[in-house]
């Protein structure tokens, strides 16, 4: 089992080494990086490349570690008890397996994606230490131990909103996805839009990288935004010359809504454009 990227996902050498190390040693892989550099997509692509099932556990601020293991629906049981339902006699009827349980008991090694682990409470990673380390947990209500026959490949993403505990980090492999350089970016575009006009891409990339260099932007446009923007440019059939005529950073690029996501950034760019025009005029 080796991961070398897929037709729709360009990986760098360091990323594939990390993924392969995690697969070989059966350790979780922690992925960090700028937003929009393909952290979440990675798990789906690994699943596709290796022909595995993807189990996606997206973390929210209210998510507890217990949710991933199982939940005991006491309220449903109480109600059933009152209605005299037969099911009430077996507590197992009210145990809802979570994503980890699902991953542990899958027939074939699955890929488990724990997405945005930093969104949860600060104790969350600590609560999962043993479960991810030994790949087993105990269900108190039914006195049963759920153990993984085949250890799932665990991919964890984080946006750095919270610091992760050291004990947790020690158990993971870590990879930081850098923002792709112009060359890798060209490959990524090629993978997503094979038939796109070369000149349009060249011009669009120039505008894009110049836009990223504008100082003071609140949110720099990232890979996923570039791909969206190219999609729009192609749909609107914008000619490369229309892009060329712009001095990027001084004039707002067409369909900028796909690249700039905050009003302040658009204002900033407009102000820069205005200053530039005045200087020239």
């Amino acid at each position, binding site marked *: 089992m080796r991961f070398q990227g897929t037709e729709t996902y360009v990986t760098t050498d360091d990323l594939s080494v990390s993924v392969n*190390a*995690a697969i070989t*040693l059966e350790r979780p892989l922690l992925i*960090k990086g700028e937003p929009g550099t393909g952290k979440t997509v990675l798990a789906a692509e690994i699943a596709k490349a290796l022909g595995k099932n993807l189990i996606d556990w997206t973390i929210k601020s209210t998510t507890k570690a217990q949710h991933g293991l199982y939940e005991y629906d*006491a309220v449903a049981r109480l109600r059933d008890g009152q209605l005299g339902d037969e099911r009430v006699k077996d507590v197992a009827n009210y145990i809802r397996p979570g994503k980890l349980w699902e991953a542990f008991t899958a027939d074939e090694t699955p890929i488990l994606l724990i997405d945005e682990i930093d969104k949860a409470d600060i104790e969350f990673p600590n609560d999962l230490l043993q479960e991810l380390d030994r790949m087993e947990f105990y269900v108190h209500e039914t006195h049963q131990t759920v153990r993984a026959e085949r250890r799932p490949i665990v991919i964890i993403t984080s946006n750095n909103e919270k610091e992760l505990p050291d004990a947790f980090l*020690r158990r993971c492999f*870590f990879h930081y996805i850098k923002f792709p350089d112009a060359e890798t970016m060209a490959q990524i575009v090629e993978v997503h839009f094979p038939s796109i006009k070369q000149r349009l891409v060249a011009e669009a990339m120039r505008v894009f990288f110049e836009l990223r260099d504008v100082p003071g932007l609140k949110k720099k446009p990232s890979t996923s935004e570039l791909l969206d923007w190219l999609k729009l440019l192609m749909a609107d059939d914008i000619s490369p010359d229309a892009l060329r005529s712009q001095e990027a950073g001084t004039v707002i690029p067409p369909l900028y809504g796909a690249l700039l996501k905050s009003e302040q950034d658009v204002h900033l760019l407009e102000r820069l454009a205005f200053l530039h025009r005045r200087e020239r005029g």
Partner: protein
Amino acid sequence: MFTGLFLELKEAGVPVSLREYLDLLAATQAGVADQSVDDFYYLARTALVKDERHLDRFDRVFAHVFRGLEKPEGEETTAEIPEEWLKKLAELNLSDEEKEAIEAMGGWEKLMETLKQRMEEQEKRHQGGSKWIGTAGTSPFGAYGYNPEGVRIGQDGNRNFSAVKVWDKREFKDLDGEVEINTRNIKVALRRLRRFAREGAATELDIDDTINSTAKNAGWLDLKMVAERHNAVKLLLMLDIGGSMDWHIRACEELFSAARSEFKHLEAWYFHNCLYENVWRENIRRHRQTTPTWEVLHTYPSDYKLVLVGDASMSPYEIAVPGGSVEHFNEESGETWLRRVLQVYPKAVWLNPVPQERWRYTGSIGMVHEIMDGRMYPLTLEGLDDAMRELS
């Protein structure tokens, strides 16, 4: 096998543990790296480094171990400083007289050219003297010097204590709360400030109430829900940054980091030396994005508890006199501003990282102590404990 790498990483301050090292060995044995140097580098990085802030340090250690290059982070850190950068720095900070003094020496171009030349000529560490680059000399190049034509190289922060005009622009470090070293004790002390309150959507089953109302309901189930408990204390944290605070940066980072994880409502602002009409949120952008202190006072209601952190070590003018600030012209004195915030936030303390027994040697500490009505505490665990007791 790679013990050298492991030990040097530890020495360079990359937090590596035995477990990670064994992982690396296991992965190497399993053939993940395929005997290629690049792959091994990637593998070692993914196994040993768990934080992007340490990537650079890892790279330097790796280079040193496997290529025998120069050792990183020695006593004297040499770094390539782009000329543009130095130039900009100086243009921003030099007064007109100082610029003239530089002109006298032949202007910036000349100064930089000479610097480059000497950098090439110089091979060893140098201190004192008046020609070579080094520390504490009167040469225009190097740190800790007092030559107005000087360029500061490779010096850690600020050296002067009670500067009336600070000479060079300090590259302040942002206390971004990302340091999680030894903050546990601080967190425990901060716990005194916890005031749990149930707010927001009812998501938890209230067992007592459910049993009660079910019994009253003649045994028919009557569910009662409550909201989860959250720490409802609101904290306004104001941190002095830069200048003489450079020594205490570690203690402040720890405090900030602990506070950030402990309080849901934590608002942090920075100031320099004394509180004036502007504060800022991000130190990197402090010269572009400041917020009027008035606005802060209007934004956060008086049920916020105020914690000021600073060494209060400055020249007395900075507190007492309008226009006394080292960085700008303040129309109202620092004292006026301090008393103003204290009026808005009756629950307030000042935490001082300077050891308590040294407080009496610096006049300005006494002044602030008096303005705070004695509510100044040392930034130690006991001091923090006392301060939290005062606040709660």
